[in-house]
């Protein structure tokens, strides 16, 4: 790449002005993130200051109008649905990547990849609509009421599967051909090459993809809101209706005031911290190529 030392190679006035303007724009772009953090803090500060962090976990329940602000059920639902989605989508996504990379004939692999990319591009509200009208009634026939943690997990899994599959496929593609040929030369069977050489070599990228998928699942709002039932309770079984942090914000923000509103901002802040941590971890593991 070609660059210049700004101090000496921008002698022309026009260039100096351009550099200043560009730096200003970039500062604005950075500023957006700062502004987001600032406003989340500003809006949640009153309740954080007065109520403290601990009561969000120890209050007897979530009755914001009576000042009871226990977010634990929502946290539990968010954790359960994301974890479940990852448990389902992780292996399926990795298997899809293995299929596309090592098993599918070229024509099918191309089609399959396009399909996964299409799946990644479907908006979450469409997943929600489909889950609500197709998946929930089917679960309801079996275990009413249908709108449940399970529905949330399945829809989330379908949504984040492309993330896992695409990153895992990229990671498998980055495994040097020589490893595979070396393994084949040792007479390893195909399953041995894939399980023993290719997947371990691509481990970093695969884990990074799973972390990104987890971040996506944690932050997802519409799809879970539409299928998970939205009852504030700690999930006890897969068939319980639950309400995640994100769904809680979406449902109550419209009419929340005072401490209630601030508490919703607190949950937004918590979500953001969680997701950002996961994304940062994924970035570290997978290297910069993930962000392209």
């Amino acid at each position, binding site marked *: 790449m*070609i*660059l210049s*030392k700004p101090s*000496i*190679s921008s*002698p022309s006035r026009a260039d100096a002005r351009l550099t200043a303007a560009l730096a200003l724009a970039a500062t604005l772009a950075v500023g957006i993130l700062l502004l987001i953090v600032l406003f989340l803090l500003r809006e949640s500060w009153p309740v954080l200051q007065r109520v403290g962090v601990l009561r969000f976990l120890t209050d007897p329940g979530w009755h914001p109008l009576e000042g009871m602000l226990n977010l634990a059920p929502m946290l539990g639902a968010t954790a359960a649905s994301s974890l479940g989605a990852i448990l389902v989508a992780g292996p399926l996504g990795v298997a899809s990547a293995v299929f596309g990379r090592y098993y599918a004939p070229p024509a099918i692999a191309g089609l399959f990849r396009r399909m996964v990319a299409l799946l990644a591009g479907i908006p979450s509200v469409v997943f929600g609509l489909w889950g609500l009208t197709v998946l929930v009634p089917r679960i309801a026939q079996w275990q009413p009421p249908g709108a449940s943690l399970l529905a949330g997990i399945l829809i989330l899994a379908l949504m984040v599967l492309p993330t896992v599959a695409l990153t895992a496929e990229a990671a498998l593609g980055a495994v040097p051909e020589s490893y595979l040929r070396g393994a084949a030369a040792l007479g390893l069977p195909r399953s041995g090459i894939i399980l023993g050489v290719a997947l371990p070599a691509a481990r970093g990228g695969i884990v990074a993809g799973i972390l990104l998928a987890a971040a996506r699942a944690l932050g997802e709002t519409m799809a879970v809101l539409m299928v998970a039932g939205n009852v504030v309770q700690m999930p006890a079984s897969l068939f319980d209706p639950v309400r995640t942090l994100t769904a809680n914000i979406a449902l109550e923000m419209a009419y929340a005031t005072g401490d209630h509103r601030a508490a919703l901002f607190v949950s937004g802040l918590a979500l953001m911290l969680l997701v950002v941590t996961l994304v940062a971890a994924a970035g570290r593991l997978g290297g910069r190529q993930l962000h392209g």
Partner: protein
Amino acid sequence: MTKTPEPCCTPQNGSEAYTVGPLQSGPACCEPEPVIRVTNLSLRYAGQPALENVALDIYRGCITALIGPSGCGKTSFLSSLNRLTDLIPGCTVEGGIEIDGRDVHDPDTDVQALRRQVGMIFQKPNPFPLSIRRNIQMPLREHGVRACTALEEKTEAALRDVGLWDEVRDRLDAPALVLSGGQQQRLCIARALALQPEILLMDEPCSALDPLSSGVVEDLIQDLRGRYTVVIVTHNLAQARRIANYAGFFWAKERTGTLVEFGQCRQIFEEPAHELTAAYVSGMRG
């Protein structure tokens, strides 16, 4: 071995030709006049020395060839002359480079004016993805030539200079990238010449071309002698021998390049003072 004196520049190049005399030991019609003076030049990439202790003079109107194996700092040296080294992150240059008595690496130097004065041609032809006409006129416009007639005249003159006019006069608005490699390289030379530089730096200008185009470009470089001062990096020893008046031999020791020997072309090839030079020009090393 007898050496016949050879004039540096052919007088028929017109009245503008610099009168630099015979470069052999015979009587000079006039003294060679240095236009670039390099003293004690060192160049580092991110602290790693790439070039150390280079000192030489480049004479006006002559062709100076820089030879030596790959990675010995010839291109870095060339880039330091028009401060293209500024473009490489972490590259620092120490020592003196004076062109016409002005310090090139002085912070107050107008780099854009310097680069107009010192043109550069690269190994791979790099015409812009514009039309042939715009390739020549866009830089002219940026340097303040606005009048339409002046632009057209300069375009034609530059293309004639490189022998491209008759080949492209009917399709000046065609994209430059459809030209052949040799034509592209000549267009790049025309583009540089249109800015009326004093010095032309050429970084292996023929090595990416087929032999035929390479010959055309080499003849063109010969024609530039006298009107321009040419510094050319080349891996082709025969070419250096054919066209150069002066030659400098670079060699790298532990990845740090230095100038081993500099002198008249004939002397470097036929009576090298240094045994490394002798081994290299005879094909035994490098």
